[in-house]
């Protein structure tokens, strides 16, 4: 058991997992490039469903390995954070010691978000014409009322407005206005305007349900918070940092460059 703990606590393990993730990302991008048609639908449904439906191991091996590496990294992060927290803090080193752990927690939440999205998410694209109605899921549908596109003097779209109604159990909602980067939410479903065409009065609408997004957002917030602490602690406490990280360089050298960071 101790060997397992030591393995995941080791910086060498974290380094190895980082390296493996990097190699897999590069390899994955090459596999993607070599099989563009195969991967064309990967973003149209939750990852685990897509993997189950497209189970060609010679194309998707790197995704499984990536998930394995990230799992290893998550375990390593939990162990390192737990060890650091158990060591305790003083008022002097609170931010210095805590900020990397907050960042670690952020990474874990983001991983959790991705996992939940990949397992339980829902994605669907609706290409609707004016007056057309399409079902989203049981008892739910979208009715497109109208589309208008605002163009600049050169004819490029500056904005577009999609007027629609959300239908649930046969009841129509009031008319809503959907614009790019201004989504609408109906319960757990989010509606996003991907494109609109004024000529044939049509719009492409992405419907998604992303139960992992909130976890990922919390993770992002923690990551940013930890990063701010990281910057703050390192700009204020360089000599302490040198000791904490086991950096052997002369502290005087660090002091001389301190003013650059303050």
């Amino acid at each position, binding site marked *: 058991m101790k060997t397992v703990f030591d393995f995941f606590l080791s910086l060498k393990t974290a380094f190895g997992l980082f390296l493996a993730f990097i190699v897999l990302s590069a390899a994955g991008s090459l596999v993607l490039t070599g099989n563009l048609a195969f991967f064309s639908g*990967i973003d149209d449904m939750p990852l685990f469903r897509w993997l189950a439906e497209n189970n060609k191991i010679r194309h998707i091996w790197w995704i499984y390995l990536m998930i394995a590496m990230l799992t290893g990294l998550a375990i390593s992060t939990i162990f390192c954070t737990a060890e650091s927290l158990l060591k305790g803090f003083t008022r002097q080193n609170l931010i210095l010691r805590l900020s990397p752990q907050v960042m670690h927690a952020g990474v874990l939440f983001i991983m959790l978000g991705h996992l939940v999205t990949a397992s339980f998410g829902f*994605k669907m694209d609706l290409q609707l014409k004016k007056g057309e109605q399409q079902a989203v899921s049981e008892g739910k549908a979208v009715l497109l009322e109208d589309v208008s596109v605002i163009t600049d003097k050169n004819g490029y779209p500056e904005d577009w407005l999609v007027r629609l109604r959300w239908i649930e159990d046969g009841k129509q909602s009031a008319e809503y206005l959907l614009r790019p980067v201004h989504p609408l939410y109906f319960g757990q479903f989010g509606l*996003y305007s991907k494109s609109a065409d004024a000529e044939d009065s049509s719009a492409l609408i992405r419907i998604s349900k992303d139960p992992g997004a909130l976890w990922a957002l919390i993770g992002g917030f923690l990551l940013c918070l930890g*990063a701010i602490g990281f910057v703050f602690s390192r700009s204020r406490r360089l000599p302490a940092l040198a000791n904490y990280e086991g950096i052997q360089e002369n502290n005087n050298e660090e002091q001389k460059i301190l003013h*650059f960071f303050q």
Partner: protein
Amino acid sequence: MCGPMGFISAFSEDARSLYYIFTLLLPATLYAMGLMEGRKGRLFFILGLTLHGFTILLRAMELGTLPLTEKHDNISFMALSSALIYWFMLRDRRSNIIDLTALPLVSILLCVAAAYEPINTIPPIQRSLWFYLHMLFYFVSYGFFGVSACIGLQHLFTGETVHEIMQYKVAAYGWVAFTFSLICGSIWFFVAYGTYWLWTSRELWTALAWFWYGLYLHARLMKGLRGRPAAVLGVLGFAVVLFTYFGVGKIIPSPPTQF
């Protein structure tokens, strides 16, 4: 239209192209002249920085927003970030030695920016505060990574420990900015398309770049990798981010999506 914008729009297409090229090549030349020794060099650098800043301000006025939506402006902004970080470091006389690498980097970036035709239309999907925050942090982080790589190169040539420490610190700031950028970018993409991750080469390489700098920052804590090996990792990190921006998409295309 009046003022500088009226002046720019009054040009013919060819003259406008020349104007955009000239407004970047002139500060690029001044930055390169910053390599001159002593006060003269500093004066040229400050002149280049001022002119460069003014050029970006004019682009902002022309677009009516932050000029961070296409390659011409993005690379120019990356160069400005690098130049400002370098300028900030000039306060420390010990960093003067990075002139030899940092100033050519800024000049080259501006020449690359000049090679791209500016685009004056902003797609509606990019009209979001989250998008601008994403781009701002993204190119600020590139500036940090660039200067960090310059200091790292210096360390590899001189072997001075102080440069290695500075490389680490500057890269750490860059990594923090890069993290902010990715979070803002994810929020923007979620608000625009209902997802915060895509399985494309660009996303994979962006994650790779983030992990690469994570690797570098962790490598510096390991006994066997501290010093020269870590410095090499840091310098290579900048090559990775440059490849992510310039190479991915062209050399490594992504699957066709509706995004």
